[in-house]
């Protein structure tokens, strides 16, 4: 990795030092509340049900929340801040004046977004261990799955936020992309519960693939698709997203 | 129209307005002059009934400011220092909705809004957003807004600060027209030319107190001499001349780059200077202005 990328990354990290306390809830507390709240309420009815593979409901949703939290935090981090960086915040102007190349500015920002998601996932992973929700020796791979989920969406989110014409487009990203992806990617119930004509939509969702990989790791079961196929879809999203992000940034910096 | 007795406003232990008395009769254009932080805006907000006085009596349009705020505000037009325009509405909507706050009927509101946009020459911008306006246009829109309820008393807090000369003259011209229609104006400014042009009566405020009061002419006559002579010498340090010029005029003020002689007879003062064997590099005789009064009363040190 080049030094410039690290400089850009550092900028965002320093920025985070000022705002971290506002992220405690969404980044760390929220997934824990989900497993406590839903586990207690729904668990009583579905624990051990064959539809979720005979495990407890918390054990079923926790790996899903692990991947979806990484996804939500990383993509959330790359909406308003990216939009603002070339507009009100004008952080990018300051960076451009320094010898950073656009590629370094981009990679530094993406790296920061990725690590925000991964650090939330890491925290939640420890919580899972404490709650006894890691039921297989493969469990540490779930962290990789969460990281891969975050990595698969950062580029695409960046591209959309960078090219957004108006702030309201970002609310739309949250409402029409981030939220439904979280709610319908087999985090809270298996895909099989969705009507069969909707299921193909989930197949292209990077979050679904991340959730299934994560769940396979913590429960020690085989994922619904071959592992390579899940990883393949995530990789396509990641690479495609990165190119789209690069294009959007270059276009923005030119004008 | 306005009568204030012993008006005081404190913020914590800081006294922003420190016991002022003012009387503004109907039809007058009344000005507050003073440096930043003198308490002008605070006074304006108290008169506008959006800031309750800490102590003192304040009556506006014959009503008590403390208890009849809404009824008083119904007859005031206010141009606050920072426009407070509605940035989510276009120009026309800004005026129409503002009229609705006064309870003015929608149809009447639209008619007046159109007329007022015309009055401040913004008709062609009726549909634009406030954000797209220049500072001068915003000010004009705020003035139009303040007239939407056909007020008996218009309060303008620094109506032309930060405007370019064209915009200032346009605003002045509109204010003159209001004055001619018999509207009572109260304004604050730190532009002396503005005060001289627009105000029938002035108070100079400093540190929350009234330092002087009167018509522009009276203020000059009371607080400075009729004329001022500005002398520049070929020297780095003018302070050496303080002693040499002592007594050459009623008052001598030494500034880093020049010496000012306050005198009722400029010519005799100049000959006195020459008579003492001094030869300034430049001599400028001029009439005393409000600016001299202002600086005399509020000092030359920068307050901010």
């Amino acid at each position, binding site marked *: 990795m080049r030094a410039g990328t690290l400089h850009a990354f550092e900028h965002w990290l320093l920025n985070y030092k000022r705002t971290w306390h506002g992220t405690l809830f969404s980044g760390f507390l929220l997934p824990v509340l989900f497993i406590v709240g839903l586990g207690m309420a729904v668990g009583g009815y579905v624990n051990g049900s064959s539809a979720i593979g005979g495990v407890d409901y918390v054990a079923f949703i926790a790996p899903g929340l692990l991947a979806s939290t990484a996804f939500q935090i990383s993509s959330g981090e790359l909406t308003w801040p990216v939009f603002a960086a070339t507009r009100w915040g004008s952080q990018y102007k300051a960076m451009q004046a320094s010898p950073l190349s656009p590629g370094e500015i981009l990679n530094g920002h993406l790296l920061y977004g990725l690590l925000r998601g991964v650090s939330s996932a890491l925290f939640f992973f420890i919580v899972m261990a404490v709650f006894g929700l890691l039921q297989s020796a493969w469990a540490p791979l779930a962290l990789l799955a969460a990281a891969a989920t975050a990595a698969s969406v950062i580029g695409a989110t960046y591209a959309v936020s960078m090219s957004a014409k108006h702030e309201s487009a970002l609310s739309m990203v949250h409402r029409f992309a981030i939220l439904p992806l979280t709610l319908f990617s087999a985090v809270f119930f298996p895909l099989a519960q969705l009507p069969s004509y909707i299921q193909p939509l989930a197949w292209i969702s990077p979050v679904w693939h991340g959730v299934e990989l994560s769940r396979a790791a913590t429960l020690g079961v085989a994922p619904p698709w071959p592992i390579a196929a899940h990883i393949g879809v995530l990789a396509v999203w990641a690479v495609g997203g990165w190119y789209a992000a690069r294009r959007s940034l270059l276009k923005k910096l030119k004008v | 129209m306005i009568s204030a007795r012993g008006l005081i406003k404190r913020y914590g232990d800081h006294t922003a307005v420190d016991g002022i008395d003012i009387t503004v009769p109907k039809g007058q254009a009344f000005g507050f002059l003073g440096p930043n932080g003198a308490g002008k805006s605070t006074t304006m907000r108290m008169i506008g009934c959006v800031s309750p006085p800490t102590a003192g009596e304040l009556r506006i349009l014959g009503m008590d400011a403390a208890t009849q705020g809404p009824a008083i505000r119904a007859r005031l037009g206010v141009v606050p220092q920072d426009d407070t325009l509605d940035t989510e509405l276009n120009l026309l909507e800004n005026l129409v909705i503002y009229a609705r706050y*006064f309870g003015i009927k929608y149809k009447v509101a639209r008619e007046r809004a159109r007329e007022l946009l015309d009055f401040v020459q913004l008709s062609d911008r009726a549909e634009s957003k406030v954000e797209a306006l220049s500072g001068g246009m915003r000010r004009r829109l705020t003035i139009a807004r303040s007239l939407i309820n056909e007020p008996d008393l218009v309060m303008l807090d620094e109506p032309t600060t930060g405007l370019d000369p064209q915009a200032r003259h346009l605003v002045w011209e509109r204010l003159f027209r209001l004055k001619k229609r018999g509207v009572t104006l109260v304004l604050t400014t730190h532009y002396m030319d503005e005060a001289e042009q627009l105000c029938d009566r002035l108070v100079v405020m400093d540190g929350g107190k009234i330092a002087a009061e009167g018509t522009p002419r009276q203020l000059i006559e009371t607080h400075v001499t009729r004329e001022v002579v500005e002398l520049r010498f070929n020297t780095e340090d003018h302070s050496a001349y303080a002693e040499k010029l002592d007594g050459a005029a009623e008052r001598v003020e030494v500034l880093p780059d020049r010496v000012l002689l306050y005198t009722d007879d400029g010519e005799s003062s100049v000959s006195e200077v020459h008579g003492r064997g001094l030869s300034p590099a430049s001599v400028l005789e001029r009439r005393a202005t409000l600016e001299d009064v202002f600086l005399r009363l509020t000092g030359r040190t920068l307050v901010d």
Partner: protein
Amino acid sequence: MAVMTTLAVRNKGLRPAPMVERNYAVHRHGWIMIISGLLESLFYLFSLGVGVGALVKQIELPGGRMVDYAVFVAPAMLANAAMNAAVAETTFNVFGKLKWMKLYDGVLATPMRPRDVAAGEITWALIRGAIYSAAFLVVMAALGLTDTWWAVLAFPGSVLIGLTFSGIGMLATTYFRNWPDFDWMMAFIFVMFLFSGSFAPIENYPSWLQWAVYASPLYHGIELLRAFSLGDLSPMLLVHAAYLAVVGAVCMGFAARRLSKLLYK
């Protein structure tokens, strides 16, 4: 003079209308935002109601009656939507106008008083929430998630929830200093959402938690709407409604007073 007398007469009553009109003028073209807000609550209904419901199938109510899980969760999602609409409007939007746009500083130079502003913003929040709620109820009925005409009463019920949370939101806004404060408010709202009996009868909770839940206005809202949508009426509903009304009224009273203090500097 005529203007003055009418104003003097009206001085006692509240004047929410001008503020509502102002907000309508701003959002006249922003109906996409309104629809997207409705879709958001429907997403929750489909995921945590219908999707999870397919796992749970049926649950037994405290009285012994068996109902589909989605039927059980749907009124809770409606209550939640009503709460969110009210809170979003009276916190994010009002805070923006108060601290960033300085909108109310301009408004108060007119005969409008802080309580008129507060009443206007709350009325606007209620109107917006009522649109969500009505649409949500229609979807619920269309999906067969309710099959009684009593469910119509869930509409005024959700407006009452809106009223309560508008009051709470307004009051909270007068205490906020900056945006991170909102994160903590959202945390609070979310905790209520998870633990107010949305997903299971609170009789399943440990008893100390049940007592905490009784304090949650959302719990009372959910109980109210659930009773209507299940057609399961009882005198307890009056208690739930009274609790919501009292909390709402008290918060509004304090909010109006605090708003005065903030604006009349």
